[in-house]
């Protein structure tokens, strides 16, 4: 038996494996046995990796669904979570994310536009990309520590201490790298011919950028924004010391605010099992918010794929 014949045999086995036949047949050689063993064990590993997802989702749904009542969503917290609901936390989280996006999006999209459309491949370009990459690697608790000493302490005359504004500004720093890098990549994917056509018609660089280039890659930019929003909506660590505590929804950006993730944390660490059950219900709300933003982002990016393929 030459090696060549064995190779042919392996190829056949491979094809047969893919069609799902020949599993009943005993392996003919040690190599074939190893091949099948690797297939089975790696497949087992891959399935094993997804088990925690189902375990966690099922656990949260089973323990949280009974507590997911209209009261929970429409009433604010009372008596440290023993009574009332989480309306203050839901509203607070939404406000935090909206304000953070309002600050971070112009800055990061503007920076992306400048680096891809205006600057040449040079020093500034490299610096912006490198600092964004470094910023993306900063742990969330370090953002929290920075926000605590910068926004809450040093700028307390401006932010009012631990307030909605301080928390939102801290979160906005976390959004910058994601939005910046995804916007850059989507701007780069726009064909140069579009820009040239616009410039040839006499448009300035400015109007070409905003009326042609950005429009062409708008869905891709939206995808990046949504991913960043989904990420910061679930962040707890930056908010522990920056938002203060509020059992009601804030009246202004200079009021303390409650956030959904931190409320889940306090509910989870609470000694009372009734409050623990509310942590699960609140988790369902948080997961629904985060995953729906994520699914929308996925859907949008898939639409982009279709548009690009159509040309």
């Amino acid at each position, binding site marked *: 038996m030459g090696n060549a014949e064995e190779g042919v045999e*392996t190829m056949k086995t491979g094809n047969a494996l893919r069609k799902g036949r020949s599993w009943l047949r005993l392996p003919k050689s040690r190599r074939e046995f190893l*091949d099948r063993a690797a297939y089975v064990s790696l497949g087992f*590993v891959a399935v094993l990796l997804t088990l925690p997802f189902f375990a966690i989702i099922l656990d949260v749904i089973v323990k949280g669904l009974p507590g997911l009542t209209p009261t929970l969503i429409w009433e604010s917290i009372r008596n440290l979570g023993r009574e009332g609901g989480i309306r203050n936390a839901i509203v607070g989280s939404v406000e935090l994310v909206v304000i953070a996006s309002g600050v971070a999006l112009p800055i990061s999209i503007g920076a992306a536009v400048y680096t891809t459309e205006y600057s040449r491949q040079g020093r500034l370009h490299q610096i912006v990309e490198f600092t964004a990459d470094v910023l993306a690697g*900063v*742990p969330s608790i*370090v953002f929290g*520590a920075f926000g605590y000493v910068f926004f809450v302490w040093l700028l307390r005359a401006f932010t009012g201490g631990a307030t909605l504004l301080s928390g939102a500004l801290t979160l906005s720093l976390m959004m910058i790298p994601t939005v910046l890098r995804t916007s850059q990549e989507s701007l780069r994917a726009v064909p140069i011919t579009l820009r040239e056509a616009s410039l040839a018609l006499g448009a300035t660089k400015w109007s070409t950028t905003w009326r042609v280039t950005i429009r062409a890659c708008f869905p891709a930019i939206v995808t990046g924004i949504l991913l960043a929003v989904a990420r910061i909506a*679930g962040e707890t660590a930056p908010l522990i010391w920056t938002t203060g505590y509020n059992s009601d929804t804030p009246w202004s950006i200079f009021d303390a605010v409650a956030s959904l993730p931190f409320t889940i944390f306090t509910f989870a660490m609470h000694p009372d099992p009734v409050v623990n059950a509310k*942590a699960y219900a609140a988790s369902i709300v948080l997961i629904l918010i985060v995953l729906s933003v994520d699914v929308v982002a996925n859907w949008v990016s898939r639409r982009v794929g279709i548009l690009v393929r159509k040309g």
Partner: protein
Amino acid sequence: MSAPIHRAHLPGGENATLEDLRNLSQRLLEALTRMVRLWYERLFGPTARDLLGRSLLLLFSITTSLVIVGIFILLWAESLPALSSLGLGIFGPVWDPNRNLFGIAVFITGTLWVSSFAILLAVPLGIGGALFLSEYCPERIRLPLRMILELMAAIPSIVYGLWALKTLVPALRNTFQPLVSYYSGFGVLAGAIILAVMLLPTVVAVSEDAMRMVPDTLREASYALGASRTETARRVVLSTALPGIGAAVLLSLGRAIGETMAVLMVTGNSLVFPVSIFDQTYVMTSVLANQLGYALADPLYRSALFSVALALLLVSVTFTTLGRMAIRWGMRRKGLRR
């Protein structure tokens, strides 16, 4: 200071009439309008808008770069009092704010224990899963698996923490208490397991990307030489994708060190040096999350906490940046640049 207008200065000289004067004033008015329009164009016209917008965008770009610089400078300034007054004593073994003892060695040890066990769990499993997804898996199964992994990455860490606190810790306690009588379920093992679960999506995604970047011609060459699928996967794909896999390890190490909430909830947070995976521990992120707000009044205490933050920042940024560089380097080396 302008000289008074004499008839002699006007067009038409001495014989200028009222008509000429009116003409002149009209021309002057026109010139003025033209000048105003010109300056308006210069200040607010399309070209000006272009320039103005351009400088605004430049300002934004500089701002984004200044954020990380600001974080570094502020953390450095905040931790300077502790670093200068304690010197190397900052790495001392005892942390007791009441006795003014600020040694952060116990937190560094805790972070090392939890992160290294998490990496030991997550990396082999993650690479195995990535190998299956990229080399063996039919497309029909691959897409749902990848989607689940993406969703896993999207679940907030507080939810992982909740699950670990209420389900994983009791399960571990029930399993191991017969063997280790003092085991409470909290500690290195629980932290490492939940951290590994949180790292898996990153490890799988980054290393699978690296494996799929391996050109099919290499695989075909290997098949043509008679290698089986497993031999190809191990000898050709794995070795070609090695820089990408290294990047996955580095990136996940950076994330493991910086992860806060889930670890905080399950490691027990006691100030001891762990000697086994059943011991409780206290990691760097947890001490920041727990104590930062109480340290404002005491400058040395606050400064010691900020030196923990600075150490976290440096280590985590180093690993993440190295990981990204490894990805880029690997692509360039194989000529697979996107």
